[in-house]
């Protein structure tokens, strides 16, 4: 199996911060908006270097989304930043009418997504945001897996015209994708070729999928591991090509199984090539307080859960 090395664990949100700092230098139309979470979103560098292009909105997310939509009128490229819960659920109608329906070039950037936000508990742990955003016509939806990928996605979004949702997280996680890997929106990344099962993972579950594949290899199972960072538009070709070879699939994400990546893939398979699928995802519940590791263990979102799902789905193969 192809070897991946953790070059030093970092949080994905820091990748966003580094990406914003770089964008600030190279694209004068990029502006940043924040709802009282500069430190959490790692906006410090951008704010320090470009105070005139940084907008502190205060704790008023609806207003932030509207202001971002307005800033596009005049050619600015706004990146909004707050927690995923306040970036989506709290402001759904503002995004729907003022951004998505109005086709505004706003980048909604969301940290602290999912259970790994940890101790703050379910009020802040949104597990429905991918679903909310992917249902909006024209919205690009991205969930990055590590620091390097988050940085690359942030930079790529400035050159992509149209509304987009970029989802990342709070915890320190392995950083393993190449620093120079180009980020192509809508293009899956083949991490490991295999023949017995396809594992498609997004966000923090990608590293877990790689560990799972190693464990499976020890059991004599050859797992193909694909990183889907762009949930919409989905790289259907990569998924269909892989399942044509393996005949079964496990999807893994830090999100409710309703509305998530797995659901999108199930739709593609149902239409094109019905294939046994198992979901590693939250089973339609809210989260709770705990450490990220405890929560990922309890809600079965780790490499062990992926291994179990693979064994289950392989037993369903005809």
């Amino acid at each position: 199996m192809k070897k991946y090395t953790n070059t030093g664990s970092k949080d994905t949100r820091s990748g966003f911060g580094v990406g914003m700092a770089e964008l600030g230098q190279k694209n004068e139309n990029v502006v940043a908006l924040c709802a009282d979470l500069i430190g959490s979103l790692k906006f410090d560098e951008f704010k320090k270097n470009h105070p005139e292009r940084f907008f502190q909105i205060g704790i008023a997310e609806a207003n932030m989304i509207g202001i971002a939509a307005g800033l596009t009128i005049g050619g600015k490229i706004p990146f909004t930043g707050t927690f995923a819960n306040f970036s989506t659920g709290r402001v759904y109608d503002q995004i729907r009418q003022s951004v998505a329906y109005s086709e505004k070039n706003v980048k909604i950037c969301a940290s602290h997504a999912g259970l790994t936000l940890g101790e703050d508990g379910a009020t802040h742990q949104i597990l429905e945001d991918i679903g909310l955003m992917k249902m909006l016509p024209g919205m690009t939806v991205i969930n990055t897996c590590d620091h390097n990928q988050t940085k690359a996605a942030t930079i790529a979004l400035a050159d992509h015209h149209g509304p987009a949702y970029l989802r990342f997280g709070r915890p320190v996680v392995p950083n393993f994708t190449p620093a120079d890997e180009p980020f192509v929106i809508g293009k899956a990344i083949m991490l490991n070729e295999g023949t017995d099962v396809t594992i498609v993972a997004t966000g923090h579950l990608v590293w877990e999928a790689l560990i799972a594949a190693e464990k499976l290899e020890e059991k004599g199972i050859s797992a193909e591991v694909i990183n889907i960072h762009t949930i919409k538009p989905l790289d259907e070709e990569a998924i269909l090509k892989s399942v044509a070879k393996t005949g079964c699939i496990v999807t893994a994400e830090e999100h409710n199984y309703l509305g998530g990546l797995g659901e999108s893939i199930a739709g593609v398979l149902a239409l094109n090539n019905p294939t046994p699928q198992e979901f590693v995802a939250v089973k339609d519940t809210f989260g709770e307080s705990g450490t990220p590791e405890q929560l990922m263990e309890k809600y079965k979102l780790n490499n062990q859960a992926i291994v179990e799902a693979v064994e289950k789905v392989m037993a369903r193969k005809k």
Partner: protein
Amino acid sequence: MKPNTQQLNDLIIQVRRDILRMVHAVNSGHPGGSLGCTEFLVALYQNIMERKEGWDMDGIGEDLFFLSNGHISPVFYSVLARSGYFPVSELGTFRLLNSRLQGHPTTHDHLPGVRIASGSLGQGLSVALGAAQAKKLNNDKHIVYTLHGDGELQEGQNWEAIMYASAKGVDNIIATVDLNGKQIDGTTDEVLCMGSLRAKFEAFDWEVVEITNGNDIEAIIGGMAEAKARTGKGKPVCVLLHTEMGNGVDYMMHSHAWHGKAPNDEQLANALGQNYNTGGNSDY
């Protein structure tokens, strides 16, 4: 050359005819608020705003207008068409399938003159503030104008925006509130009394200009000139525009009944009879 008062009043009558015929044709839409704001929008597009020839979304180098209370789309469409943004004949497609003139305004079908979708209330001021701040970044000295319903101010997002505008010194915006005192379920006082809007805006550190006869073209032009004179001084500017819902059609006035109801054939004929240009009408 700006049109004179007589020409503006003639255009107001024509716009009223457009509104009435548009909502009658599809038996839906919102005539009451549209008629109440006819004089204001005619004044804005024909006298007050500095506008470029042609149309582009970014609107750099010209004043901008955002309609937040999107349900008064009939008056917006009529004034846009009669100000040259798209053919007047297109008013005949209002609310029809495949039309660019959707029930509520949208950018989705690229109708010239519309910069944001509105209809779900309370979002326009935030958008306008963003556009105003983009103007500052672009070193563009032009003004951003908005229009809001008074009932619309019950939406909380407005107050986030109102607080933000003064805190950040967004002084290139003139937000007008259509103070007709009526909303769907009754008077604004009955539904959710908002007290003194002047006191509220002043408490949020806005400049407030009151136009007590908001259906009089000269009063509007005078009041808006006063509002414009107060821009650029560190504070956002609010205009409280006292209007009569359904203005110009006697049976639609003094009631909230015609907020979202179209006239029948007989009522239309009556209303058009009350709004007739002796020099000739130019109906679409």
